[in-house]
């Protein structure tokens, strides 16, 4: 059945209600401005300039398992050319062989299948002029053929099951509204295990010939998907934070995740505006090398701020937290032993003169406060304790800076006056300002979500946003799988996207996830726009 183009009726009118109603009634209908015969600019670009995204440098010695920060690889995919043949022969068959090796034995591949032939290809095949053309054609075919299916790989069980489930819920909540048929979306549970993921990727490629893969919620899955995306020219929406460096790890990988760097940027900008020039940094152990911290330190330095620390602490261990705070405010007796001994003697003499028992606990060194703010990327609970520890050390007032982990009702209830004026960044603004499809059910509180729901809501939003992008991309008619990359890169944002940027992705294939800064003031939190 030829799809009826309702967009002609609602030309230039993005009326979401009608879209939803019509999509529900006619799932195959299209809202593209252009019919299949009249190609959309994106589709046209994909066909005309379908190698832009694959403009890879053949001289690069990119490893098969790229890691973050890897420079972009340029390559030109031209049918019949020997360089392309070699490059592809180095990557595609390797990926196929790996998938064949790790597939579930029940996933049978017929012996005469073209897949086996591709897997057998080596770069030497390209050296033989008689076989080069066939080899290249075969390889291009392998990365071109696809069905308009989206395979979603999530850890629905196992260690990361809760997170996977939250993402899954987000996707499910969006599925009925996008015009994507249920059979076009295939969910697979990775059981939080890499081996499962590899099996499902094999199934997605061999059996379903998926056009797009969504996954990468765990670190192992992320690495695996990056690898196969790169080897198989497989467009992948990665549910993982973007790389810290402004770089492209693989042109086939698109990050759909909040952006810590953007959050830091927003926070530091606001802090600078408040006159913060000296920042102390307290870090929970194991976060030293995190992107968040490293980017914070780099950006702070770029803004001319001086940094004290970072000092790490063991969350939940009082002595460790007090020690870290003492390092910032230099109340450590060891470092100021002379001063401490004098204070001790003075207190002893005073107690003796007054006839009172002497208690060394009451002898404390006055803090040396030479920072304007302290950055603590930890949860609200730890922040409240640090506020108490600061007070205990005699620091009368200190602006504290943090991240989305602060955002919870207990941050301000019961009210802790010490936190007045402190700020934190977040990747979600007021909940009631989110696109309608994203808004939580408990929309009565625009600032906080209840209990456990706040954490799952974030992941649900990621899933929802990722699926929205995937469904928009897959619905745009495209001839070849690798051409979906261009489709994704050129995808514009709509009212139902979290981002307010014109395009969904930036030039490094990172979703333009916005950043917000909240300030604690008047016993509440307020968005600083």
């Amino acid at each position: 059945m030829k799809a009826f183009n309702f967009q002609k009726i609602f030309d230039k009118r993005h009326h979401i209600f009608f879209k939803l109603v019509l999509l529900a009634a006619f799932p195959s209908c299209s809202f593209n401005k252009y019919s299949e015969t009249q190609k959309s600019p994106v589709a046209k670009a994909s066909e005309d300039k379908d190698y832009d995204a694959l403009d890879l440098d053949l001289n690069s010695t990119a490893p098969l398992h790229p890691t973050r920060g890897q420079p972009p690889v340029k390559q030109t995919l031209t049918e019949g050319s020997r360089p392309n043949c070699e490059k592809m022969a180095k990557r595609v068959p390797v990926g196929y062989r790996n998938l064949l090796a790790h597939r579930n034995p029940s996933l049978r591949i017929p012996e005469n299948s073209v897949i086996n032939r591709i897997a057998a290809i080596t770069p030497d095949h390209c050296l033989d002029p008689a076989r080069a053309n066939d080899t290249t054609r075969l390889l291009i075919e392998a990365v071109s053929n696809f069905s308009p299916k989206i395979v979603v790989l999530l850890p629905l069980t196992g260690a990361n099951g809760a997170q996977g489930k939250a993402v899954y819920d987000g996707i499910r909540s969006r599925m009925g509204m996008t015009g994507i048929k249920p059979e076009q979306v295939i969910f697979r549970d990775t059981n939080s295990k890499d081996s499962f993921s590899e099996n499902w990727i094999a199934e997605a490629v061999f059996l379903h010939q998926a056009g797009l893969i969504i996954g990468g919620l765990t670190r192992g899955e992320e690495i695996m998907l990056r690898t196969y995306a790169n080897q198989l020219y497989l467009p992948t929406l990665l549910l993982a934070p973007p790389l810290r460096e402004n770089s492209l790890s693989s042109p086939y990988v698109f990050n759909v995740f909040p952006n810590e760097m953007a959050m830091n940027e927003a926070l530091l900008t606001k802090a600078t505006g408040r006159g913060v020039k000296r920042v102390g940094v307290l870090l929970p152990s194991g976060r030293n090398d995190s992107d968040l911290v490293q980017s914070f330190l780099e950006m702070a330095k770029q803004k001319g701020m001086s940094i004290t620390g970072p000092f790490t602490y063991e969350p939940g261990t009082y002595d460790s937290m007090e020690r870290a705070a003492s390092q910032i405010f230099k109340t450590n007796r060891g470092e100021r032993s002379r001063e401490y001994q004098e204070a001790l003697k003075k207190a002893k003499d005073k107690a003796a003169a007054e006839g009172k028992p002497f208690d060394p606990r009451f002898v404390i060194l006055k803090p040396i406060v030479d920072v304007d703010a302290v950055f603590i990327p930890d949860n609200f609970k730890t922040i409240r304790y640090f506020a108490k520890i600061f007070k205990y050390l005699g620091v009368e007032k200190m602006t504290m800076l943090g991240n989305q982990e602060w955002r919870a009702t207990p941050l301000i209830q019961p009210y802790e006056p010490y936190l007045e004026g402190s700020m934190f960044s977040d990747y979600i603004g007021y909940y009631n300002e989110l696109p309608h499809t994203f808004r939580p059910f408990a929309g009565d509180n625009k600032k906080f979500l209840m209990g456990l729901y706040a954490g799952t809501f974030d992941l649900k939003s990621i899933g929802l946003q990722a699926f929205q992008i995937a469904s928009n991309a897959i619905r745009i008619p495209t001839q070849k799988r690798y051409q979906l990359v261009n489709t994704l890169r050129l995808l514009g944002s709509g009212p139902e996207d979290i981002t307010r940027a014109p395009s969904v992705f930036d030039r490094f294939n990172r979703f333009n996830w916005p950043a917000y800064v909240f300030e604690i003031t008047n016993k509440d939190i307020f968005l600083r726009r």
Partner: protein
Amino acid sequence: MFRSYPGRALVWVLQIVFVAGFLSAVISVGGVFVLMRDIGLFSDNNQALKVIQQYRTPDNSVVFDKNGEKIGEFFTNYQVYVPYREIPADLIKALLAIEDRNFFYHKGFDPKGLMRAVVNYLRSGHADQGASTLTQQVVRHFLLTKERSMARKVQEIILSLKLEKTMPKERILEIYVNTMFLGNGSYGVGSAAQRYFGKPISQLRTHELALIAGLFQSPSRYNPTKFPERAKKRQRLVLKAMKNAGYLTESKTKQLLEAPLIYTEYVPLNTAVAPYFLDYIKAETEKITSRLEISTLGRGLRIYTSLDTALNTLATDTIKNEDARLDAVGKSMAQGVRPDGSPVSRIEASMLVVDPNSGDVLAMVGGRDYGKSQYNRTTQSMRSPGSTFKPVVYSLALSKESKWNDIVYVSPIMVGNYRPKGSKSDFLSETTLYRAFYKSMNTPAVELGEKLGLPNVLEHAKQLGVQSPLKNEVGTLLGGSDVNMFDMARMYSTFAAEGNQTELQSITRIEDRSGRILYQAKPLEKRKVSIMRPEIAYLMTEGMRGVLKHGTGAQSSHLAPFAVGKTGTSNEAADNWFCGYTPDLVAVVWVGTDDHSAMPGDSAGGTLALPIWDRFMSEAIKTRKSRSFRRPSGIVSAIVHPQYGTKSRSGVEMFFLQGTEPTESASSLEQIPTEGNYRGIFGHH
């Protein structure tokens, strides 16, 4: 020169004899005159006799418990007044037989009796009959010295004769039996009956009365407890005298002679039942009588008190039964030596029990052993109450805006220069006020107190009945100001009595011996004032139930359905408290040393005082009518997470003013320990 003539010498002799005779006569008359003057024949003896005539037989002031049972006496000389009509007839017979057989027939002096006594003495060698009449003995006791002279004897006879003219025989006898010293510190037959036989004179049998009658001659010589053989011999003499006087038949006498004399070991009542309470009552009585301008001693006052003897005995025994345990703790205290080398005081324990509704002081045990230490720790000792003071802070907070499920972040705090001690294991543990209370955390109480304002807390403490002056310091919030056990009893009574405070009373009424009421305690309605809303009192009761169910008193959780309470431990466990109550009974227990020595490391209110309270209360509730705490309308309960304050099926029951109960069933706090992070989406990578 003298002329000589016959017979002249005779004349001279006669003259000399005459003169000498005259002079002798003059001297004799003068001597008799002097003698008669000396014995008071010419003086106004009536004035001296007034001492006897107006003598009011002294009587001990007697203290009664709430059931009218005698629990003690106040006296200078131990005297139990026995009016004439209550003197047993056999005692009178015995006395007459051995001391003055013609008492009812002579005029105060009995020449026949005297002769008979002399004859008997000469014949038998035993003074089995008195030479002096009872009247003479009374006169001698009151008016004369013990000098043995003819003049004194004559004087005694004259005064006796005069006394008999002005006073009936019965009254003389009554004075006699009630005033004579009869050994063992007893004066009069009533007290002797108590001291030797442990019962009132009315309950003594004839052979016992005979022993008492025999004591009059020489109470020290015949003291039955010191010289039972002599006493028995004397008793036999009395019985024989009774037979000789015709008061007893031969067979009866024989029977009485063989009847065994069973003496009770003298246990002074004052130290037997409620010694500490009696000391307190004595002091309280003196306060009252000084206001009434009467004396306490010898007045025969009848002092009715609120003491529940059974409970007091239970309290005493409970503490006594802790001897081994407390001594063991004492031994472990730095080998019983303080740092300065002086010995550590013995570990003491005290208990005060009151009825919160009537204000009656029901039991008072001021120490482990009255014999060793009469220091009453319930009234005289000022000690740091530790955490038993915290209900002051929490009740004020709950009466303001606080709720049991409010969250507190437990961490060390500094207020001014004060850094209250807290348990490190509690730090970094967020908790509800309820949990902070039942676990007796320090820093939340200080924070709460700071929020409420120290002056407001101190004022509230005063309203709750803490009459001891409290220091205007943050440390007071944690019980750093000394109080006495009455302060604590008043405070906890207020919670137990649904927010009403009834002035404590120990003396309900004082009468003189004729039954005239000298003092009457104020009626209940005039002693009772409302201090806090019953709803707030109930919230506190439930908070203190939490102490027994989940907190520092959980070892006594078996009592939680019936009773509630709060532990308290001062610095270095020098004071260890448990204050708890049922709807009808408030019991305050303290354990410590009089010199404020530090206790061993694991000592606390929960380990030292609570076991005593537990054993006492477990027994006490068995004997009392079971009653639950009344839940006022407007109070609702909810199952709440003890740390996060949200509704939780696996939580604990908390109580709230209606409309303030939690509605949320999930807390962001919950996610951190569950998930290891909160919104930590970047952490997966």
